[in-house]
């Protein structure tokens, strides 16, 4: 099958990296202890959430500040369906939340994706705020008091559910955006909409498809999150801070790159947790994140993920690699003129 072949790593380095990552993540509960399992449950969730924002923000070029709306839709769908009396199976609630989020994305996306830049950002932000007000005022959501879900005390259960969902999300996005025609369509729309139209791309349809993809992912993770924390209210699943985190993680990791959000999520979430562990509940973390974002915007506009390619392009790094592994460097590569190439 073509899609299966597309998943085969292209280099030995990629294969080794993926194997180590796979073994590390899947064996973590066996040796990591509850604390680290909980931490990495968070890392995997935020990696997928940041990737979902990256689909619309990084790949399609539409800066959305309303992604939390879809996270909340997923969380409330799972919460409502698992209430006593309905007693839905947890796994059955996830696709329902995803479908609902997808439908909302189509309805909202049709008019809103005609806007560009700040107008689109404001429109999506307004959607999330409106949804938060509805959840706060409506009776069936429990209003500001929120709602409780059945409890499941197994840390490993949520870790593996989150991990499998995140892995599937990354595979889906990789196949669609990096190995398929859809990725070319989305990136073409991002770079020049009129030019994309001139080569036959239906830009309206592509934008809505990208928006739906970026909406379905947080809905699934919203559902898992709701069951994990066993209690949700508008503040915990519809707060604008959730979107902010997705944006910052994608930005720090690298916009428009498949691994960027995962890297950003891992770095920022680990820093956040360590700050909490060392300094307690402090706001100094926000100052550190602010400084980090400023540094990245100034010196690494393509995010932390670009460090690898930058290092490869550096003359010193090339010389060091040549000395260490003489056969690794192509002949004359050290003295070749520096050209701006895709990493």
């Amino acid at each position, binding site marked *: 099958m073509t899609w299966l072949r597309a998943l085969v790593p292209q280099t030995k380095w990629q294969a080794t990296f993926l194997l180590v990552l796979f073994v590390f993540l899947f064996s973590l509960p066996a040796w990591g202890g509850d604390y680290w399992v909980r931490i990495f449950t968070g890392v995997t969730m935020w990696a997928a959430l940041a990737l979902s924002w990256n689909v619309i923000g990084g790949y399609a070029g539409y800066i959305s500040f309303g992604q939390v709306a879809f996270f909340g839709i997923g969380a409330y769908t799972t919460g409502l369906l698992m209430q006593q009396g309905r007693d839905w199976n947890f796994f059955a609630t996830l696709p329902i939340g995803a479908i609902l989020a997808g439908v909302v994305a189509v309805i909202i996306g049709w008019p809103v994706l005609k806007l560009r830049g700040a107008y689109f950002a404001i429109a999506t932000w307004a959607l999330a705020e409106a949804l938060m007000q509805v959840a706060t005022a409506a009776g069936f959501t429990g209003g500001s008091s929120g709602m409780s879900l059945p409890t499941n005390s197994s840390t490993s259960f949520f870790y593996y559910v989150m991990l499998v969902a995140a892995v599937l999300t990354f595979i889906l996005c990789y196949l669609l955006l990096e190995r398929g*025609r859809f990725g*070319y*369509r989305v*990136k*073409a729309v*991002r*770079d*020049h909409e*009129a*030019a*994309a*139209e*001139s*080569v*036959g*791309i*239906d*830009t309206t349809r592509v934008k809505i498809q990208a928006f739906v993809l970026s909406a379905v992912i947080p809905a699934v993770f919203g559902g898992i999150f709701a069951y994990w924390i066993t209690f949700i209210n508008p503040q915990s699943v519809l707060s604008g801070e959730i979107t902010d985190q997705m944006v910052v993680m994608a930005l720090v990791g690298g916009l*428009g790159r498949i691994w960027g959000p995962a890297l950003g999520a891992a770095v920022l979430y680990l820093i956040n947790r360590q700050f909490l562990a060392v300094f307690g509940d402090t706001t100094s973390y926000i100052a550190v994140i602010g400084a980090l974002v400023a540094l990245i915007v100034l010196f690494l506009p393509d995010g932390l993920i670009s460090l690898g390619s930058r290092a490869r392009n550096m003359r010193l790094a090339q010389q060091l690699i040549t000395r260490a592994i003489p056969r690794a460097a192509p002949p004359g590569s050290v003295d070749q003129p520096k*050209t*701006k*190439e*895709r990493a």
Partner: protein
Amino acid sequence: MTVLDVRELRRSFGGIRAVGGVSFSVGDQEIVGIIGPNGSGKSTLFNLLTGVVRSDSGQIHLNGRNITSWKPHRIARAGMGRTFQIPALFVNMTVKENLFASIVEGDWKAAPERADFVLDLMNLEHVPHMLAGSLSGGQQRLLEFGRVLMRDTQLILLDEVTAGVHPNLRKIILAAVRRLQADGRAFLVIEHDMEMVRTICQRVIVMDAGEIVAQGSFDEIASNKSVVEAYLGVPVE
């Protein structure tokens, strides 16, 4: 056989008439030039033909199909390709990715082979992995033209494709135009370079103030009084 047939096409922006009742046709394997002073409506005419701007009235037929009011992507799929006055590239994608992106709605399986052919034809075979945004101005023109060639277009609209291009690169573009004409493609070319118009265009349309003031062979329009007035103005009595 007529590839493009335009009848009484009109478009105004507010009170300003950009294109007023333009009619012309482009035949099979024909290269038709459109010239005229700045603001004469040439680029608006291209935008009307490609569906970027909707006409107020008039009809456009491509290969016998009425494409008036069609959306740009439908017109492109129907067989019309274009370049823009300012190169419109997918700047964050590589040269090869730009070519691949232009065939996503076409014969995808043939994309690698076709891309190699276009890279060779446009003399871009040494920069396939460079980002489009980092190419020189001339190379960007070549890539944009090459992107049109990735698809099976019957009519290609070139908007000042040789503007600001090095003479060597211009030769590549001209050779490609001739080769593609021989392969059965028709061209509609906006151009300010009269030498290029004289060299490749079998027929020339002259526009001024949104209207066609003359059309014919290059020699005919060069001796036409209206054309001289449109370009140089009317002498003071």
